[in-house]
């Protein structure tokens, strides 16, 4: 085994800096202005969802019925809802849940998708056929229809540990959205497994499990990272959509989606209840999508010299 220091040759600064794929990618990513803006906005937003509920005088869950439907003012910058709760504080408190649901659902969906895609791409043949037909079948049922059926099933307690809190919605989003990632990972595995270094590792005695996880996976990471980033935005929208329909995270726990549930009946006299939670949702999704876009450019092999 060659030691990293041994391979270093004094060819000037560039070679000594030990350029990894990721350090090169980061240099490119920094130049992608919308992506950097997305990163900054998202960091600020995440920070606010943690800090604002702590420092504010308003309890996000406590109702003040006399203060209902107050228009935005200095006291309540985004107004209050039908139970007199401050919308800014509630949006921050709920935003934490929405982000948590989005990130967990993405992690689960990407893990399932990567697992299935890796199996299909690596083993090929019958395994590939079976798994990809499964993905095709999942894509034949409209995702929201499937999600609604599944979430009712889970909320009724069919699987005990997935029946309450954010667990059912995280599971449902993941189970209805792993297919694109699986196809992507399958394609990457199909091409990488043909490479010579895999042949070399195999002849050195590496078992299939080791080839899949240690040799191919790191080389298939770029498309997975990009898909994962874009998946977060999609997962947050799905959570909000299901919660908006009353099928997601249940009140009194706030999320950007369920804060909008009553908005349609209130917008004649309190449009701010509809505008602000959705605005945070929109900004977050744009930020994630721009970051994903920047990562796609930065991790593009054509960029890496």
């Amino acid at each position, binding site marked *: 085994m060659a030691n990293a220091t041994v391979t270093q040759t004094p060819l000037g600064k560039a070679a000594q800096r030990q350029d990894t794929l990721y350090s090169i990618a980061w240099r490119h990513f920094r130049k992608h202005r*919308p992506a950097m803006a997305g990163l900054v906005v998202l960091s600020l937003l995440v920070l606010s969802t943690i800090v604002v509920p702590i420092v504010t005088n308003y309890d996000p869950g406590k109702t003040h019925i006399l203060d209902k439907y107050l228009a935005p003012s200095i006291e309540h910058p985004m107004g209050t809802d039908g139970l007199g709760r401050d919308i800014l504080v509630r949006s921050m408190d709920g935003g934490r849940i929405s982000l948590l649901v989005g990130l967990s659902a993405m992690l689960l969906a990407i893990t399932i998708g990567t697992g299935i895609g890796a199996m299909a791409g690596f083993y090929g043949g019958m395994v590939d056929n079976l798994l990809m*037909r499964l993905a*095709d*079948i999942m*894509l*034949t*049922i*409209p*995702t*929201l*229809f499937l999600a*609604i*059926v*599944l979430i*009712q*099933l889970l909320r*009724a*307690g*069919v699987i005990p540990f997935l029946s309450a809190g954010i667990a059912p919605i995280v599971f449902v989003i993941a189970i209805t959205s792993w297919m694109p990632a699986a196809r992507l990972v399958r394609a990457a595995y199909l091409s990488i497994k043909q490479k010579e270094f895999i042949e070399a590792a195999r002849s050195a005695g590496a078992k299939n499990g080791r080839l899949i996880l240690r040799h191919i996976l790191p080389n298939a990471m770029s498309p997975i990272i990009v898909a994962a980033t874009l998946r977060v*935005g999609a997962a947050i*929208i799905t959570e*909000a*959509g299901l919660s*908006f*329909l009353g099928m997601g995270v249940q009140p009194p726990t706030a999320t950007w989606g369920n804060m*909008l549930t009553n*908005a*349609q009946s209130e*917008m*004649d006299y309190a*449009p701010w209840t*509809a*505008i602000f939670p*959705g605005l945070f*949702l*929109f900004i977050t*999704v*744009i930020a994630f*999508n*721009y970051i994903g*876009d920047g990562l796609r450019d930065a991790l593009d092999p054509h960029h890496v010299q």
Partner: protein
Amino acid sequence: MTQYIIRRLVQAIPVLFIVSVLVFTLIQISPNNPLSAMQNNPNITPEDLLRLEREYGFNDPLPVKYVKWLSQTLQGNWGDSFVTHRPVLTEIGERLPNTLYLSLIAFVLALVIAIPIGVISAVRQYSLFDHLVTTIAFMGQSIPIFWFGLILIIIFSVNLQNPLAGTPLFPHPAPLPLFPGGGMTTLTDNPPEPLVDRIWHLILPVSMLAVFQLAQHVRYMRAGMLDILKMDFIRTARSKGLRERAVIYGHAFKNAAIPLTTIIALEIPALFNGAVFTETMFSWPGMGRLFFNSAERGDYTVLMGILMISATLIIFFNLVADIAYAFLDPRIRYD
């Protein structure tokens, strides 16, 4: 080509079969069933409930239930709704045209608007127009569709008034919203002309449904066009002295539309998702709203019917997209 279409149609049968087994199982293991609503009804005794359960075959083993459902369905009997007691096919038959009417208009409109915008944006890459288009398209792709719908209603239905209220075009006296916030036609007095009324009611829900597709199509059309414009045959066409219009519309456009066709096929299921939100918000009597209401009530004969019909439609439209694909790119041969 005919052979290919026949083969695809035959292949769809096992897929639909597996979808039906999957969905049937999911719906059947759900404790939500239409009889649970009757448990609190004082006019129904527990004995009645047991009798009903026996009659409907609620306690049969799952495979027995499935075989019963399948044999009836194949004979064209899709069962009755547990809520309205009308045949499932009648229920769906009333709603499906409304959904197709709304989504096909949105679909065509998104395509017709997106293609020229994408082409111009690519031809004038890095111009002000291009920057504007790419930014707006990016936002359109990120906007939560139901929130966009809420904002549309707030602006165009709650805040803006119809300046033509009281005129022959809109006989209803002011105040009248610029665009209605729900329904397919005017149900109150003084409706506008039927055609005007229909279009007037379509504008907001169609905008809501089309925004995502529009943004997506613009991005793909632009990217496809940029790729093609770099190719050698475009340079050849230009060096032959062909006019720029002929190069762009005669040579580049058809090739650049190929990636768009792929994405259209992938987006078809999303039309059904969008329909749930759009129809719920705009009280549009379509499949999406029927599905949502049936899911809430555990009306599973209707749920099964909607899921099977939407799966069939998705397979069908995917096939149409693949045929269009072969039409655009003669190198693709399906036999």
